[in-house]
């Protein structure tokens, strides 16, 4: 644990920490471009220069390259260091275009910040700037090479961190070019991270191009709803329209990155077909009328068929809060069946995960990244949980052995050997082994006993809240919807953000459905109740490892301003409320139904055994429910 002094502040850091990281740990930001916490040092940009006054080395040093050592006295503000940093900025600005007003990065640009901070205001270079021809990199990422400051972050991420092969460095000297051999969409499923890691505007989010400045965005810490991993995100919205999604750092989960599905796959939030208006028998009505009709028809139904023929359907797409409220509604109505999963194919892996994971055995993405032996069982990892595949790659880069059991692992991310069974793997030689079970894996058989204790497990599940639903399903004795329907007893459904996996018999009434997406159930519903999407509300998802994480409200619900008036012009009339803004989160809607039935205020969903999840801070690493 070296002890050093940086700008008169005593710092003690673990061995191998760079001076730059040591400074960051006490809140001193030394300018940097090529250094990135996930990509490490490169020593290329030379802007992190500091002066070492005392210690084993002296003089001007690059703080990213220099390991902190005992007895060092570091000055970040020394005149010589400041002069060099100023020179570096001047060099970088020789060719950087002054196009900040039309650059999407403007306002969130590291180069802009450090140029201002470094005091480079007067241009001494009066020659021509070098220019490049940009490439078409697909519909998602815009390429503007003239802005490049050659920090090599993009190539290092794309090739080294993410295993991509179709993008890299070309050319030399001041004509170094970062791109593909020819125009064409980037092939890596992690290409969107180029937008996040580029310290200036070479790679920008094409889907959000020219839409807003950083300070215009509605932003809040949120989660990705696309698979079970619960990667942390920052969605950015403006005027009730989701514009883009950025990765949010969580060292235990996704680290610094997210996959392209999580970044670019969220158009449904803005879709014009999204339900915004309560419907009764497909006719628009007010909220009161919709709920009154629902209660009327519900009591009729219960009188006619009895509560045993009613199924309450929750969903792994819905927040934990919504699913808890669904269980309370079931208790109140005495409904015969509660469903959380569409089919047993969905529920079984989730229940298996809930039954077998303990705080000691649950493997986070961070555990996978630091594993030295990884067995992937029955899983198309890149398809089912891309970021987990990226985590496996990091372990592989550090020398971990990767084995595939009952599945094919042909990917450029890592090289896995095919193994006949788990029992054939050298678990006893490994220090930190992890088994990743996919949704296609068979139930563990006796050979899994060969796996020594201390092996961590990761289950790849389907939805963002599969694990939470599995806990509730176990507690509530839930059955998958397909099984419940097959029993033939069910005559009516109340569905909350649920999806159908089987044909719904005509005889089964969908008394009401609540969702933010125009699903089949919403179309069948006698009473269709629109709800808020996850970024329009606060809530909790429990990810595949049993980690409960909070997402916060990013933007208010309602129709995006764009599209309200003709030709995309904002509306010309004045209203106090935004159209479509009177929708509620799923859990709140269920609470309303319960309140109407019972006539008294309903408790918050996270009470009783869920109490401990109430205090989760969305910016923290989450809370284990194991």
């Amino acid at each position, binding site marked *: 644990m070296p002890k050093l002094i940086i700008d008169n502040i005593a710092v003690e850091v673990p061995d191998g920490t760079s001076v730059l990281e040591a400074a960051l740990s006490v809140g001193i930001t030394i300018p940097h471009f090529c250094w990135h916490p996930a990509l490490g040092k490169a*020593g290329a940009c*030379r802007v992190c220069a500091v002066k070492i006054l005392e210690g084993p080395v002296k003089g001007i040093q690059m703080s990213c390259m220099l390991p902190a050592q005992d007895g060092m006295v570091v000055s970040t503000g020394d005149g010589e260091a400041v002069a*060099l940093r100023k020179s570096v900025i001047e060099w970088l600005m020789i060719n950087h275009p002054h196009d900040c007003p039309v650059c999407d990065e403007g306002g969130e640009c590291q180069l802009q910040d450090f140029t201002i901070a470094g005091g480079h205001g007067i241009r001494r270079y009066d*020659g021509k700037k070098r220019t490049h021809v940009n490439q078409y990199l697909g519909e998602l990422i815009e390429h503007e090479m003239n802005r490049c400051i050659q920090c090599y972050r993009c190539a290092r991420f794309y090739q080294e961190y993410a295993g991509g092969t179709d993008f890299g460095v070309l050319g030399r*000297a001041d004509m170094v070019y970062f791109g593909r051999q020819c125009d064409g969409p980037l092939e890596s499923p992690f290409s969107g991270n180029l937008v996040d890691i580029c310290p200036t505007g070479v790679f920008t989010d094409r889907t959000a191009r020219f839409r807003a400045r950083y300070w215009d965005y509605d932003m809040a810490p949120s989660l990705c709803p696309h698979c079970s991993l619960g990667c942390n995100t920052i969605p950015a919205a403006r005027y009730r329209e989701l514009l883009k999604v950025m990765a949010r750092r969580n060292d235990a989960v996704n680290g610094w990155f997210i996959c392209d599905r999580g970044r670019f796959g969220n158009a449904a939030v803005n879709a014009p077909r999204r339900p915004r208006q309560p419907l009764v028998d497909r006719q628009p009505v007010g909220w009161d009328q919709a709920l009154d009709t629902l209660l009327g028809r519900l009591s009729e139904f219960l009188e006619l068929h009895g509560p045993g023929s009613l199924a309450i359907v929750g969903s792994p797409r819905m927040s934990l809060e919504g699913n808890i409220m669904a269980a309370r509604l079931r208790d109140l109505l005495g409904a015969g069946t509660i469903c959380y999963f569409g089919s047993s194919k969905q529920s079984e892996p989730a229940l298996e995960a809930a039954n077998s994971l303990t705080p000691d055995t649950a493997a986070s993405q961070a555990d996978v990244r630091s594993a030295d032996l990884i067995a992937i069982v029955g899983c198309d990892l890149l398809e089912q949980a891309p970021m987990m595949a990226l985590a496996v790659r990091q372990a592989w880069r550090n020398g971990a052995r990767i084995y595939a059991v009952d599945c094919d692992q042909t990917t450029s991310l890592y090289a896995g050997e095919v193994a006949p069974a788990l029992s054939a793997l050298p678990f006893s030689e490994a220090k930190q082994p992890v088994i990743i079970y996919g949704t296609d894996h068979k139930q563990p058989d006796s050979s899994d006993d060969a796996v020594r204790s201390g092996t961590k497990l990761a289950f790849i599940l389907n939805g963002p809240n599969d694990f939470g639903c599995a806990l509730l399903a176990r507690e509530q004795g839930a059955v998958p919807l397909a099984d419940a329907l097959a029993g033939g007893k069910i005559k009516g459904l109340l569905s909350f953000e649920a999806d159908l996996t089987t044909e719904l018999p005509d005889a089964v009434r969908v008394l009401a459905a609540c969702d933010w997406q125009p699903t089949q159930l919403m179309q069948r519903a006698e009473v269709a109740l629109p709800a808020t999407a996850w970024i329009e509300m606060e809530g909790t998802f429990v990810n595949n490892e049993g980690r409960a994480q909070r997402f916060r409200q990013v933007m208010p619900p309602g129709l995006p301003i764009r599209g309200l008036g003709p030709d995309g012009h904002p509306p010309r009339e004045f209203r106090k409320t935004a159209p479509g803004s009177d929708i509620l989160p799923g859990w709140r809607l269920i609470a309303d139904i319960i309140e109407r039935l019972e006539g008294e205020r309903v408790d918050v969903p996270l009470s009783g055994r869920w109490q401990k999840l109430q205090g989760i801070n969305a910016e923290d690493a989450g809370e284990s429910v194991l």
Partner: protein
Amino acid sequence: MEAVLFGHNRPDRAVTFDEYCAEGGFAALRRALAELSPAEVQQAVIDSGMRGRGGAGFPTGKKWSFVPRNLPGPRYLICNCDEMEPGTYKDRILLEKNPYLLVEGMALASYALGVQHAFVFIRRGYEQAARNLRRSVAEALSAGLLGDRILGSGFSLELDLHQSAGRYICGEETALMNALEGKRANPRAKPPFPAIKGLWGQPTVVNNVETLANIPAIISQGPAWWKGQGATPEAAGTKLFCVSGHVRQPHCMELPLGTSLGEIIDGPCRGMRPGSVFKACIPGGASTPYFTGEHWQVAMDFDPVAKAGSRLGTGGIVVFDQNTCMVAATLNLIRFFARESCGWCTPCREGLPFVRHTLEKIENGYGAADDIEILREHVHQLNYAFCALAPGAMGPLEGLLRLFEDELREHISARTCPFKTR
């Protein structure tokens, strides 16, 4: 002095394998394998006081001693023949005249270092040299002087020739290793040094062609004899000087290390061209600060040249006469370095074009007094580049500012290059 490197040379062609052997070639290798342990070979090189001939002048024996003996896995020897320093062509001449010296030297060095796989990394343009080398390797192989169990000893060596795609930066040893591994030729961070973690992460020694070609003589004639070939007591061995520019007879010659600049020019080069008067020279390749008439007596050895404010470098001397514009000469060099930057670090990639632009302005009569300050700043700041390319490029510029500031100011005040109007 006896010729150590050029003793076997034929005037119009390369020496043949048989001629080389008949004149005592490969005797050193035979002797070492029969009589000497690897440690004794290394000790002989240490005793000889040999300093690397590639430009930096680092003691060769000391470099070898950094290689850890107890690490598992292979060790590598690389001969750096990516000779691309403007004004330097000694390695080419050496290989075109006598490639066997390098083969024998590499075999000896590999024996001393415990290397079983050695590489020659040769510049693409050196086609004749590569042909010679390839032929000599084949001849040595069939004579049992390379390959498995050389001369019946327990020592085996595979010697591979790699014709590089080639750039100046490939001469930087860590960039060279990246290039050899098939990666972009960007320099690597040091530490770890190549002797610990080099080619494919294994201990690696990188030596210049001339350095390795001297090893046979050190072994066959003894380190004391070899050391005695220098012109002064401090100078060890001989040195290839390749002279170009405005002298009567520019060529590559072998002279005792420590021969004075004046002796080189007036002796083997037969003085300046008719009508030419010595104005300045690059003493050791394009990255070394200029010498002028006041340096005429400087002994061309590592320490005396450094003391005189320049570097011996590769021994590539480029002589300028009185009609040479030093601004234009420096600009020409800076253009080369700016083009040859690998593009990895900012000072080199962006700083050198800034210098080039500033010198272009001054040379073309658009310079301002402030520009001299910009140049001076760059001489200082480019020291903080990632590798030695940019600091090296500042060598001639530093010389220009120190020795020819008047000429610079004349360009600025006359608003033109005075040599164009004269």
